[in-house]
């Protein structure tokens, strides 16, 4: 090994890390530019109202079943686990407050976001990626229709509005399912379940949940549309973009969740 030879592998590793970091920064910049350009069309004619409604249906209504099922089982498991823990301290009456706070503050927004990423976010990326492969995005441009206004904007806005609504449904179903397990199966007093819940859950908790859901919805919309829009125009490229969109959006939800939770504590 020549002079400084042992430094070469270290330089290579740092070089690779540096290049990855620069690529990440470039992608962040590109995503910001794409979403800002798209959102600027909110104020311009033609309005994309009809396309927004279609996307709201695809993202929101079509995700209802999975949100209801996930919410119900989350509430049921929380009630079982919560009862087991609280019984050790003789505080079973706090079950309602425990289930409601866990779901409203944390599990509703996070699990709701995961479900929307898996069901709707991946299909947004794949759909836009396929439009790229089949030159449909170019065709729109040549027909003087801006894909940022027609394709990107309605999906970002729909995700931002749909997720808080889905999370609200998730919360209600989760709390109701927790009630069924806690009260009907485990014998918790129904009055104390509801009374403790209404006493302990404050407007601050509800606002924290709403804000998280809105931020997650916007982030999912931006990431999933961006990954599809810049997908390599090949079959493998679309598959890779879809996987990356799901992974990046899911990790992003957890990271942003930590930051927002630290603000709302």
């Amino acid at each position, binding site marked *: 090994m020549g002079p400084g030879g042992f430094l070469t592998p270290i330089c290579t590793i740092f070089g690779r890390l540096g290049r990855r970091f620069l690529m990440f920064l470039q992608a962040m910049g590109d995503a910001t530019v794409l979403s800002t350009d798209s959102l600027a069309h909110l104020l311009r004619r033609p309005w994309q109202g009809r396309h927004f409604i279609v996307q709201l249906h695809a993202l929101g209504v079509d995700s209802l079943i999975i949100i209801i099922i996930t919410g119900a089982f989350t509430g049921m498991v929380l009630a079982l686990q919560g009862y087991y823990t609280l019984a050790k301290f003789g505080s079973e009456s706090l079950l309602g407050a425990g289930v409601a706070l866990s779901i409203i503050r944390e599990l509703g927004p996070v699990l709701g976001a995961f479900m929307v990423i898996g069901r709707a976010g991946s299909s947004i990326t794949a759909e836009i990626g396929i439009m790229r492969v089949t*030159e449909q995005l170019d*065709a729109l441009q040549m027909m003087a229709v801006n894909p940022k206004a027609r394709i990107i904007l309605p999906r970002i806005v729909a995700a931002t509005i749909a997720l808080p609504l889905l999370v609200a449904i998730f919360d209600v179903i989760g709390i109701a399912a927790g009630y069924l397990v806690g009260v009907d199966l485990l014998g918790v007093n129904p009055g104390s379940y509801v009374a403790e819940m209404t006493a302990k859950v404050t407007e601050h908790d509800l606002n924290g949940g709403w804000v998280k859901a809105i931020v997650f919805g916007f982030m999912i919309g931006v990431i999933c549309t961006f990954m599809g829009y810049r997908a390599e125009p090949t079959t493998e490229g679309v598959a890779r973009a879809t996987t990356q969109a799901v992974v990046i959006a899911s990790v992003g939800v957890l990271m942003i969740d930590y930051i927002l939770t630290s603000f709302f504590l």
Partner: protein
Amino acid sequence: MIRGESLSKTFGDFQAVRPLDIHIREHGITAIMGGSGSGKTTLLRLLSGLERPSTGHVWFAGEDLSRISERRLFKLREQMGMVFQYSALLNSLDVYGNVAFPLHEHTSLDEKIIRRIVMMKLEQVGLRGFEDLMPSELSGGMAKRVAFARAMAMDPRVVFFDEPTSGLDPISSGVITSLIHDTVRQAHMTAVVVTHDVHAGLSIADHVILMWQGAIIASGSPDEIRASDDDRVRQFIEGRPDGPIPFSRSTRPYLDDLLEIKP
């Protein structure tokens, strides 16, 4: 009509189009021909404003497409139409929806009038009665004809065709070639046709541009191209495998690769 000055396009280290000047004449058909990878589709995308050039300018209707705002570019595109290599029909719309799409977007015409225009365009391409079919239910030739009808829906000043006959059987290919010829002549349009189909290109074009390795190697009327004594032009129009345009892209001797001899 359309003019490119010192136009070039580079993707990373690869120069797809070398600096060139090009002039597309009004009310006629210009065929851009060349082998696969010669840069003709990239040149078409530069001329239509789908790609921004690395260097140079594209002038259309007195405006530089490479410098104007995105908004202005979209406004100018209302005067353009394009038929893509794989048709690029919108999957979510049926044949009627695809052809009516530009009319719905850019006009405030009554739906009855739009229907009549769509029927007229579909009749022109021989597909009246197929308006309820989805793109997935169409053959390659039918999809190309729907794309043609859609490109003509707004009666554009200029239409771009990217490989209009590729992947089609001889009958469909002939139909598309005739459609381009007849429509452009009747409507006094300007057409830019990118093709490697020598027969189609030379039979319908008023002006032919031949490309190789991102550069223009010949330009003139179809008769001038046929009479050219340039070896590269002759090899291309005669479809000869041997000549100055190599068939094999490999730079290493075949035997070295077979015997795994390291360079």
